[in-house]
């Protein structure tokens, strides 16, 4: 067949062409190996290629409302390769540059800087650190415009070496809880405990060594991308934290105490809303240096606040009624070889069980416990175990304190251990333990593990979600619980903690003052604390405030503590008073976050300036809402408020919302972060508006 012959012929021609190409490949192989061989072999020896690590950006730590607690910001160290810039430019501009450097750093004269650079240039030095101080991004931007520097890395020789530094927008607030991590991956707080989540995945890239000992990244070389670290969403309420911090600071400064801490917990969830730890530094300043609320150094003899445990054990174990009486005598009672004293001179005389607790009579509690458990002290210890007070709470932080509780059989147990234990001595627990217990009493007997980190997030996706586990569904019977609550309310209403009475909230709680042991002896130094919850009838927050070794006499017995508790309760009360019924925003939270609504002209200008793509559709309205459409922003006309109607201001900035609302004759009250956007408005959009009516806006 003729067809087949042609096909065969053409196939062979094609085969020959491929054969030719194959020959070319082999020829090139031989050429590279033999004729260019030495060149490439030399290159292999001097290439100086290496994989160098690229650090991943560390994740952020947020407060519960999205405020930034810790973030990484780039800082730069300025170095110069003085030999790169050409002679004429150098001579022309070095004087101006030196002057600018001197003005900027304020540490050397312009002449000194000029001399520094010139001598380095003469010595053919290729790398000169102009100043070890690190500058921020704004300064770097400004500096890039300076003479010589403006020519850039390859013509001007300027090097901005990036270093990431951890930045805390709220400075010292919760600093120890946020924590830190150093280069050896040692540290404290959340930064340390959640390091694995926060640090991300370091990458690497292929670099080539260039003259001057620097490394140049090979752009088309192999590389592993870095993976940004996850973000932490904590439970910290930054406003509450601020109030607690400042209030505690004031109290500590006035009382010249050694340290103090305050923790606020949400009753229903066990979330820690504020946690302050301040300790005295050498120059009589107070700083966040150690987490006394959680850590081992914070575990001390709690004193009277522990009497709640004794009462719980007593009411559970025996059929004692709150109205039963016991004689506390003249306030002195001998247990074996030691005498226990009440604070009140001359003693309380005969007291009911309830009064024993409300007046915090040491003798009364110790006698009651001694009578009930004297024969089987281990039973009492078992109650402590059952309340999870004998082991770490399993908080999401490394370095939690370990309580110290003696067992009846342990060698340290003596015949006076039980009575003293019943009033909070001869044992050690952390303030957080105490708070967790009181929180359980407030939470209908349900004991929750404290929570400080709610979520681990990557961008907007939740990677891990934490819910505190329930340590105990019911710490005691309902009857006992009611009695305990009554007594705790009584302590503030009638008893020792009457200075904690608060105008708006009824507070329930217990104060305590323990004498401190120094070198094995009890001293006059005290450990004042208050732990309680409020509002007493339907508790929402529990809190503990501890002040260690107040020095001024006037501050003894908890006055310092009282002010802090009051301030915290005030803040929460203020928040509650302001709470109203709001219409929730209808917009889903994942719409384009940058642009929600506003004045069209301005938004377009902003988009142009920021390089945000948007649809250029024509709309003949002044007010628009942005909707995300693929990677563009589409515009939707915002309903124009007819006269006498309430405008729709959700998603607008305060500036725009005020303009629209006040134009309608409405009075505006604002809550929340003023730099945010309107998330709720108290009058429905497009309903009739009455001149002079008040509209509340919630910003977020």
């Amino acid at each position: 067949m003729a067809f087949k012959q042609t096909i065969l012929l053409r196939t062979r021609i094609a085969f020959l062409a491929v054969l030719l190409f194959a020959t070319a490949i082999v020829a090139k192989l031989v050429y590279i190996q033999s004729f260019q061989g030495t060149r490439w072999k030399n290159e292999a020896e001097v290439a100086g290629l290496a994989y160098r690590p690229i650090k991943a950006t560390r994740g952020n730590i947020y407060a519960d409302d999205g405020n930034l607690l810790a973030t990484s910001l780039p800082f730069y160290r300025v170095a110069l390769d003085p030999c790169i810039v050409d002679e004429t430019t150098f001579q022309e501009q070095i004087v101006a540059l030196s002057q600018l450097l001197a003005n900027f750093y304020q540490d050397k004269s312009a002449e000194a800087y000029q001399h520094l650079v010139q001598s380095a240039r003469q010595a053919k030095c290729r790398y000169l650190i102009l100043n070890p101080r690190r500058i921020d991004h704004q300064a770097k931007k400004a500096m890039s415009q300076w003479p010589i520097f403006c020519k850039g890395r390859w013509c001007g020789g300027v090097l901005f070496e990036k270093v990431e530094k951890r930045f805390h927008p709220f400075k010292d607030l919760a600093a120890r809880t946020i924590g830190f991590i150093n280069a050896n991956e040692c540290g404290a707080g959340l930064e340390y405990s959640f390091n694995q989540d926060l640090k991300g995945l370091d990458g690497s890239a292929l670099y080539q060594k260039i003259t001057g000992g620097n490394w140049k990244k090979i752009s088309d070389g192999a590389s592993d991308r870095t993976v940004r670290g996850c973000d932490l969403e904590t439970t910290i309420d930054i406003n509450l934290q601020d109030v607690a911090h400042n209030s505690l600071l004031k109290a500590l400064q006035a009382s010249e105490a050694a340290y103090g801490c305050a923790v606020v917990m949400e009753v229903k969830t066990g979330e820690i809303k504020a946690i302050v730890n301040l300790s005295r530094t050498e120059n009589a300043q107070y700083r966040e240096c150690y987490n006394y609320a959680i850590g081992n150094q914070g575990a001390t003899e709690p004193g009277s606040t522990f009497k709640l445990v004794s009462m719980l054990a007593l009411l559970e174990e025996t059929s004692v009624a709150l109205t039963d009486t016991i004689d506390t005598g003249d306030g002195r009672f001998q247990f074996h070889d030691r005498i226990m004293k009440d604070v009140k001179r001359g003693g309380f005389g005969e007291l009911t069980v309830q009064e024993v607790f409300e007046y915090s009579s040491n003798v009364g509690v110790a006698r009651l416990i001694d009578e009930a458990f004297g024969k089987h002290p281990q039973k009492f210890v078992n109650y402590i175990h059952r309340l999870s007070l004998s082991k770490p709470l399993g908080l999401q932080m490394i370095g939690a304190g370990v309580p110290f509780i003696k067992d009846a059989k342990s060698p340290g147990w003596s015949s006076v251990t039980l009575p003293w234990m019943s009033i909070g001595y001869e044992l050690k627990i952390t303030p957080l333990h105490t708070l967790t217990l009181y929180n359980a009493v407030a939470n209908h007997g349900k004991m929750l593990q404290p929570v400080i980190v709610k979520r681990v997030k990557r961008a907007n996706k939740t990677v891990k979600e934490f819910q505190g586990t329930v340590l105990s569904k019911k710490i005691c019977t309902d009857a006992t619980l009611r009695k305990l609550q009554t007594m705790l309310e009584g302590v503030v209403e009638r008893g020792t903690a009457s200075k904690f009475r608060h105008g708006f909230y009824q507070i329930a709680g217990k104060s305590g003052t323990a004498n401190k042991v120094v070198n094995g002896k009890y001293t006059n130094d005290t450990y004042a604390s208050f732990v309680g919850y409020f509002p007493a009838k339907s508790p929402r927050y529990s809190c503990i405030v501890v002040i260690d070794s107040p020095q001024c006499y006037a501050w003894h017995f908890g006055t310092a503590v009282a002010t802090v508790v009051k301030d915290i309760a005030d803040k929460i009360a203020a928040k509650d008073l302001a709470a109203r019924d709001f219409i929730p925003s209808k917009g889903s939270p994942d719409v384009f976050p940058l642009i929600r609504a506003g004045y069209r002209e301005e938004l377009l200008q902003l988009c142009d300036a920021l390089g945000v793509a948007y649809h250029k559709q024509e709309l003949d309205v002044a007010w628009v809402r942005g909707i995300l459409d693929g990677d563009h922003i589409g515009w939707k006309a915002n309903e124009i408020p007819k006269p006498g109607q309430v405008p729709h201001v959700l998603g607008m900035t305060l500036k725009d919302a005020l303009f629209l609302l006040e134009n309608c004759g409405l009075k505006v009250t604002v809550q929340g972060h003023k730099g945010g956007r309107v998330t709720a408005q108290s009058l429905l959009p497009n309903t009739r508006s009455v001149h002079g009516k008040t509209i509340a806006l919630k910003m977020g």
Partner: protein
Amino acid sequence: MAPIDPVRKINQTMKQPINQWLKRHLKGDPFIWAIMLLLTTLSILTVYSAAGALAYRKMQGNTEYYLVKHSLLILSSLGVMWVAHKIDYRYYPGLSKLALWISVPLLFLTWRYGLTLNEASRWLTIPVINKAFQPSDLAQLALIANLANMLAKQQRHIGNFQETLMPMLVWCGVICGLIALTNFSSALLLLLTCMLLMYIGRTPIKYLMMLTAVGIMVGFIAMCAGQRGATALSRLKVFTQDKLPFQTEQAYIAIATGGLYGKGPGNSQQRNFLPHPYSDFIYAVLVEEYGLVGGVVVVLLYLALLYKGIRNVSQSNRAYGGLLSAGLSFALVLQAMVNMGVAVGLGPVTGLPLPFVSMGGTSLLFTGMAVGIILSVSRGDIDESIDELQEQRTTLKNKYK
């Protein structure tokens, strides 16, 4: 020259059970089977070595991960090949037509919604088994098989523009254009292979010129609309410059330090610095480890595969079989030549893998299928029932004429 007939040779020693088993199960040209086994063995060795750097960085040093993964893929590829060679090649026109129609929407989907890797979306994830595959592999296979069929059918009026040329030009344009949107070099190579196949299939040269024009036009559109235009241009620019790109430089170092016999398996240095040493630049690593000798052997293996593939043209009874076999052989071997050409610096850097040697997920399965089809053609007519069907159809046709 007439090589000793390998079938007869095997017959002589077939008393051994292994040979009997082989003869029963591995039909078709035994030479092709042998080439495939050699190439895949070499592939496992080289990939294991070359993927070391990748494994070290990505799998926490678990180098066996890629060894196992690649070996499994090679095995499944051989499996696909075996299945494909069991099927009578006369079933392929229908299958390929179906595949061609499916691949158009798939390619489109990939372009718009595919997985993105190295800034190009070439992968689609198959639901249920959750494996990513490149629809362009399927499209390539389908296009060549169809082209062979169309050419074979129209041999008698090959010069007819309307009937013969138009469909072929349209299909080539559509498929190559769609592939070019995400993978420019693959599309170009496919177009080249199609032109070669049409040339072999006796298409007049003037029409081939026309196809070239279509190609340039489609290419231009794809460059503007697709994702890869800028990359293709920049790579061309880099190639025409005096300074060698980094990859090529590193490949040259690999080749030069390999010497005549190589550094030995697993001793490559350049695998640490070459980008994609396990796929795009595997030939450089291969030469570094097995030397000039190894490099030449690989080139010869591909040439032998091509030779065996086009021998079907003279041996097959039908034009279809010959053209199908030749088209697929050229497609595979041209890609291999381009890959090796890039490694030795004869062309601009492209991301084409070396068929059967490079590590690469599902594309191995499609190359396996291609060789399977070539084997099937080499077996000749297997299924007698097709002939009967054919006869019935002709009689039916005659009956209703």
